[in-house]
């Protein structure tokens, strides 16, 4: 059998919450062996994020295994070990993991690992070739290094909370934690590049990933426009500076909408034909992009007078068949049923011992012709503590029992 892309790569995963998880998922989906470290006394906070899966076992406490938020983001095969860092023996076991690993990933605010002697200098003493990946909101130096970083705040700091809105109203957020899903691509590339570099040179490294800095790399054109032209981004609803019609239009049904974008004059001609060549569409003022932009409000009303007669799927189909960009504004149900996403097997259905069978587990938005991602339900807290201690680290079973009695795994 051919090897997987990251077969043989060993990762210790202390990346809790969002960014670090998305970052390491890419590696774990494609063959890395990953051991997740947490404890019941200090679990990954996302295990406490609503919504929670219901249970039919009466009076069963909520526990740490029923967060849909946790399970939908943790889709990679991992081993789980419980380690309570308040116990010195837990630190010793962690160091054994560091000696075993190629990569240690962690996502605490600056200071947490350092206080435990587990900063890069500390890890290097145990394993000189280690790649230490650290991610936090603001980076590991500077006056805000030790501030906790929540995605909803970082989205604002990275200019992403001021890019959705109408000119006459306050902006709205693009999603809840936008940077959480935009900054991991740079993060995972940094680890993959570091592994590649180490393979060729034998050298490990320390990687400082500041989520705001990765996020701002998507915003470069706006930064340049401000310096070159003194211009800040203007909110323009669903309009486009150079194309019309361009917007979101009401369709038949309750709160059903379709997005339409006519990007060129050629597409405008196709659009007219597709909607049955109404008389108004032949008016001279609509013939060029400049004219359509000038009359875009009026044009939007006319487009909507057409879309309102059809279900959204039909508008999408009519216009796309004519070579015009159109897509239904998908809600949760539409996404689940989307024929394109399902063609790519993007919704994987998996069993979970506490949550039952659910079909919302996703691979990465990547397809490789010669490698399949390994998609798994999230590891339970400490699910493989014994296995990791005995089989991977070579600790005797007696010793494991003693450590357990001391509370090292609590």
């Amino acid at each position: 059998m051919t090897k997987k892309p990251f077969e043989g790569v060993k990762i210790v995963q202390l990346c809790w919450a969002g960014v670090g998880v998305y970052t390491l998922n890419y590696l774990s989906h494609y063959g890395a062996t990953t051991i997740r470290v947490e404890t019941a006394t200090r679990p990954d906070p996302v295990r406490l994020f609503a919504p929670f899966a219901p249970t039919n076992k009466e009076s069963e406490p909520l526990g740490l295994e029923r967060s849909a938020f946790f399970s939908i983001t943790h889709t990679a095969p991992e081993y789980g070990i419980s380690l309570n860092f308040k116990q010195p023996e837990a630190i010793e076991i962690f160091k054994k993991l560091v000696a075993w690993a190629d990569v240690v990933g962690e996502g605490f605010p600056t200071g947490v690992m350092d206080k435990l002697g587990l900063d890069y200098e500390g890890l290097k003493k145990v394993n000189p070739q280690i790649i230490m990946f650290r991610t936090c909101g603001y980076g590991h130096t500077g006056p805000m290094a030790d501030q906790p970083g929540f995605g909803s705040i970082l989205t604002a700091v990275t200019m992403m909370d001021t890019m959705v809105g109408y000119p006459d109203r306050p902006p709205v957020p693009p999603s809840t934690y936008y940077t959480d899903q935009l900054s991991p691509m740079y993060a995972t590339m940094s680890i993959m590049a570091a592994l590649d570099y180490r393979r060729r040179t034998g050298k490990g490294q320390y990687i400082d990933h500041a989520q705001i800095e990765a996020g701002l790399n998507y915003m470069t054109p706006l930064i340049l426009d401000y310096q070159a032209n003194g211009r800040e981004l203007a909110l323009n609803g669903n309009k486009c500076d150079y194309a019309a019609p361009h917007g979101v239009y009401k369709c038949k049904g309750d709160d059903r909408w379709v997005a339409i974008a006519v990007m060129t004059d050629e597409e405008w001609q196709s659009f007219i034909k597709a909607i049955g060549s109404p008389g108004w569409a032949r008016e001279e003022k609509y013939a060029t992009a400049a004219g359509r932009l000038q009359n875009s409000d009026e044009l939007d009303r006319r487009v909507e007078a057409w879309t309102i007669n059809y279900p959204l799927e039909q508008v999408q189909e009519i216009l796309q068949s004519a070579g015009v960009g159109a897509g239904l504004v998908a809600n949760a149900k539409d996404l689940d049923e989307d024929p394109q996403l399902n063609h790519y097997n993007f919704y994987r259905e998996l069993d979970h011992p506490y949550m039952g069978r659910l079909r919302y587990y996703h691979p990465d938005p990547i397809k490789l012709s010669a490698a399949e991602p390994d998609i798994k339900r999230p590891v339970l807290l400490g699910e493989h503590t014994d296995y990791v201690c005995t089989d991977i680290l070579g600790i005797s079973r007696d010793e494991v029992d003693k450590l357990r009695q001391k509370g090292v795994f609590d």
Partner: protein
Amino acid sequence: MLSCYRILDLTDERAFIAGRALSDFGAEVIKIEKPGGDPSRFRGPFYEDDPDPEKNLWWFAFNSNKKGITLDIESAEGKTIFKKLVRTADVVVESYAPGYMASIGLGYKDLSKINPGIILTSISGFGQEGPYQDYKDPDIVVRALGGLIYTAGYDDRPPLTVSYHHTHTIGAMNGAVGTMIALSHRVHTGEGQHVEGITQQALDIICSAEIEGPYALFGEIPTRHGRARAEVTLKDSSTFYNPLLWECKDGYVALNLLLNPASARNNLSMMEFIKRDGIDIGSFEKWDWDKKSWENMSREQAEELMEILGKFFLNHTKDELLKLATENRFQLGPCNNAGDALKYPQLVARGFWKEIEHPELGTSLKYPGGAVMTTQGYVGIKHRAPLIGEHNDEIYQELGMSAGELKNLKEQKVI
């Protein structure tokens, strides 16, 4: 770190960022554009609003670090030259309509015959196959089908897309990650492969936890509630939408209001600041912050709290609130615009902004620095984007082409 790899970049403006990211980590990226200049160079924004293809800011942003050559890959001679380049390369990145590369004889099968190690990365809105494979995929359309529009906006108006059309950069960055995965795979197999980065799927990941979880578990379909996106449950079991954004004196701030015992100290201390402004905190004088959560709050109280916070934020500027947040570890941050970001103290302290020379403009511009800092060399922007055909001589001479040949090809508009 990746200086041993050569990447040929055939992308359009939606996916420039993929090659740019690979170049940030040191790869040699050669941007190939049409003779006369890439079409994207002719659409703004431009430096000083001067519509000159050499002053395009989107081009500057996402093609920095790359070398630039011109080549018409549709012409017979152009194809021959491109194939020669493929022999010297590790990766080809493209974002044409699905099937286009194969239709001109440059699909993955064609390229791998020339160079079995080559990785072809194709970036698209919906994917290279499937029922939407021939769909037009402008920014707003992909964003709609990716699930990010329906929940954005106000309930009395149409849902909203972004005013900054960057949606495809998210699929493109996944294409860059896929390229790295394929490079790693090649170490084991000795062979390249065809990689896809797909924007619709990348968007679906962004909204999965917020939108798909409630649907999978309860059949709920989340809708839009303006600035209030965080859903909490109140005492009467009803849902309350907790605002993420707040208006302040000179713009907006984001607040992550955690109302649980673990956040009691923060919340109490914020109440003290509010009182110092002379704002009456009403029933919250007697609220047990260290015992109570949203689940203990009536709707009336939730609305009272919103009013108190609203008044407080309107009293202060973004800068004041940032200072307050940093000193007290409040989960509060300014909604920066470009001007704010350039002077944001943490970024300035870390030396994040990089001054890049543009000798042709007689000036320099500040660019975002690298997405990571490492102990094995600098990652990020190094130099400005290439001019049209700037590296033609260097790259074509390396292929062994003579000055005469180059002149000929120029006359035939191949380069």
